[in-house]
């Protein structure tokens, strides 16, 4: 029956739509530009997605717990600027832990507001987005930050070196992805994150400390931002105050693309990694076919809308539904 076939295709699209779209994209780009599927280009995409990816790993926890984190972009600017500044003042060995402490303190503040005071995470993190930006500018006095002795510091190791032929940022994200994936999928804490995001009331009735779980998710998110800031600072050894600007949307797009629901309770680290790669390849493909980089902004938005729509459609079991 044509009708049932149309329905089956509709359901398949609703469930796998992102992957289908992605495959079509890849084929299109590969035809348009022979270099697209070359090993160099692939490694390049992976490498350039590493910073975004590291942040997305942390945000995955926040999203699964049923919240949002829109502050990660300006938080990353903050950690980048701070670590570059402290590098010359107290040396890299102290600058790195100091930067981690400061970034995670910001995460703890958000976690406190959203977890313990139960404030709306969209509002809190949107506010933090601009508050932290202000903090960064105050800290730097509005100036760009540069390391004096760029050639003589081991600090460039994280962003520029390779181990066994593999760039360090890729090793870092791989290691972090494995660890966080274990944490999320195999430990009691991970289970609690899903429960809190899936049904917070039922989680409370099951004796799960909801506030503490949410708090921990923001701490994890901030930790990942600090790692990303470190990679960024180490790669460039100098930075503007706005280096992370806009990252929050790319991160969110990647996490949703991977299939985490904004309603909370679903998603995995593995899927987020896939989401990051999809986003990375699409943005890279757009550049390779010769579109200006700012086209990415529009495309990213289209992708977010598409992903959210398919997410809801998959829940309803059909692409267009008369019921909300």
């Amino acid at each position, binding site marked *: 029956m044509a009708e049932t076939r149309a329905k089956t295709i509709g359901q398949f699209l609703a469930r796998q739509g992102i992957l289908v779209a992605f495959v079509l994209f890849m084929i299109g780009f590969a035809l348009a530009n022979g270099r697209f599927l070359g090993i160099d280009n692939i490694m390049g995409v992976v490498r350039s997605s590493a910073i975004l990816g590291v942040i997305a790993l942390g945000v995955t926890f926040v999203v699964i717990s049923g919240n949002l984190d829109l502050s990660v972009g300006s938080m990353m600017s903050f950690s980048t600027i701070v670590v570059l500044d402290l590098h010359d003042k107290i040396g890299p060995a102290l600058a790195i832990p100091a930067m981690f402490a400061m970034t995670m303190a910001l995460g703890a503040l958000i976690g406190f507001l959203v977890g313990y005071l139960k404030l709306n995470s969209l509002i809190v993190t949107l506010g933090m987005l601009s508050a932290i930006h202000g903090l960064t500018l105050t800290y730097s006095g509005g100036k760009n930050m540069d390391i004096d002795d760029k050639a003589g510091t081991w600090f460039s190791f994280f962003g520029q070196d390779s181990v066994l032929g593999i760039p360090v940022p890729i090793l870092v994200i791989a290691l972090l992805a494995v660890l966080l994936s274990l944490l999320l999928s195999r430990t009691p804490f991970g289970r609690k994150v899903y429960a809190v995001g899936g049904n917070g009331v039922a989680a409370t009735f099951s*004796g799960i400390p909801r506030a503490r779980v949410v708090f921990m998710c923001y701490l994890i998110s901030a930790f990942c931002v600090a790692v990303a800031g470190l990679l960024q600072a180490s790669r460039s050894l100098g930075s503007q105050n706005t280096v992370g600007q806009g990252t929050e949307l790319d991160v969110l797009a990647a996490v949703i693309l991977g299939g985490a629901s904004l309603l909370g309770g679903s998603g995995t680290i593995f899927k987020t990694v896939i989401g990051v790669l999809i986003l990375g390849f699409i943005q890279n493909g757009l550049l390779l076919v010769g579109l200006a980089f700012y086209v990415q902004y529009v495309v990213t938005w289209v992708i977010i809308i598409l992903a959210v729509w398919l997410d809801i459609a998959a829940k309803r079991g059909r692409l267009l539904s008369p019921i909300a």
Partner: protein
Amino acid sequence: MTDIPALRLQDIVKTFPGVRALDGVSFQVMPGEVHALLGENGAGKSTLMKVLGGIHQPDEGKIFIAEQPAIMKSPLDAKSKGVVFIHQELSLADELSAAENIYLGELPRKSFGRVDWKTLYEKSDAILARLKCSFDSRKLVGDLSIANKQMVEIARALTVDAKAVIFDEPTASLTDAEKVVLFDVINDLRSDGVGVVYISHRMDEIFTISDKISVLRDGSYRGSLVTADTDEDEVTKLMIGRSLDSENPIVPAKKGPIALEVQGLSCGDLFQNVSFKVHEGEVVGFYGLVGAGRTEIAETLFGLRAPSAGKILLEGKEVKIASPIEAIGHGISLVPEDRKGQGLVLGMNCKDNMTLPQISDLTAGPFVSDGAEVAIFDQYRDRLQIKTPGWRQKVGNLSGGNQQKIVIGKWLSMAPKVLIVDEPTRGIDVGSKAEIHNLIRDLASQGYAVIVISSEMPEVLRVSDRVVAMFHGEIIREFTSDEVNEDNLVQAISGIRTTKVA
């Protein structure tokens, strides 16, 4: 009455991954007939009605409304074809008023599409008055009790000119008084020539209200009976393939020391000056009308509400219970009243839901031990006869009764010292209900202290060693199992005090 069925379903097949929920079921309802649909938990009753109500599309089979073939594209479509569905699981918008929920999707309009609020509230109040509900239709649904939410759900059905109305376990959270109102409504529908489908696990209701009974088992149609010509035993046999096991006779508990004592406990205007004791090895039933404060006492004992006065003593020592975590630490379990809202994470699988409160203890090294979890799940799946294709199934995909069993298994597996169950057999079929009652008695004989809160009098009478009757937040009287009977219990929960004090 005419000869044309109000609705007819023919050879309906519906499969879900791993489950053949409906295997060629045919079913019809005449106008002015109240047709009861029976079957064990997971037999396919709700699924059949969801097919009729446009929520699921059948894989095969046809639907006829007044013998006209019909395709139900969506719930709204079904409603426009005169089929109204009152759901087993509440499907209301908590943030909207009762009136807006009642007329959702078809709010009365003025010019320029503006909502005609005055008419909306007038009409809604009239419907609620017909249902003898005392609350204002402007009230937010989120602020209503479960019973009142259920009444709003029922009110929805009365806004349209229905050809057929489906009630899927409408009384699961209603008390007797509201039930009487509901039955009046159903009788009105019957005399208006509407075809009514009535799903329930309560035999007394089936025999009070229905004209005809059809039975489903494992997704197939098993036969129909005329209510007037049959009895409970025959229906049960058709349903579960055998007569009901006799429930173990109550062995009066070997009372141990006092496990839980409550002295002068109050919580705002929810309940006042409540005192009672529960011994080890004893089942204490709490009976009363909805709003009598029983659930609130349970929630206070479980650390979900802060008492405004009074003491809680466990094994003779006073304790402060500030959160469910502390309650669990003290060995208290609570099977909450609202399985969907409070009991389960619907998107998580069966096993994960069941082990959630003890997940931190089920570890091997830093990781959750799958083996330990699956062992717990298997044990309670067998004991409670939970019907699911496997532990990986999402709880949200289980039938209502099987979801309830997951919640019960979840709290039994904690091996609590004090077990509080709030409406434990809501939505559970007759066979499993007997099993759960036996289980509660077993637990008591193993030395657990059990509190059973229930709005079903037979249940309270059946499992309790002592019965506490509550009215308006106060304990009116305590009965021993020898003293208690239906009459004095009914009196007590309407607030009539007898001079004799237990």
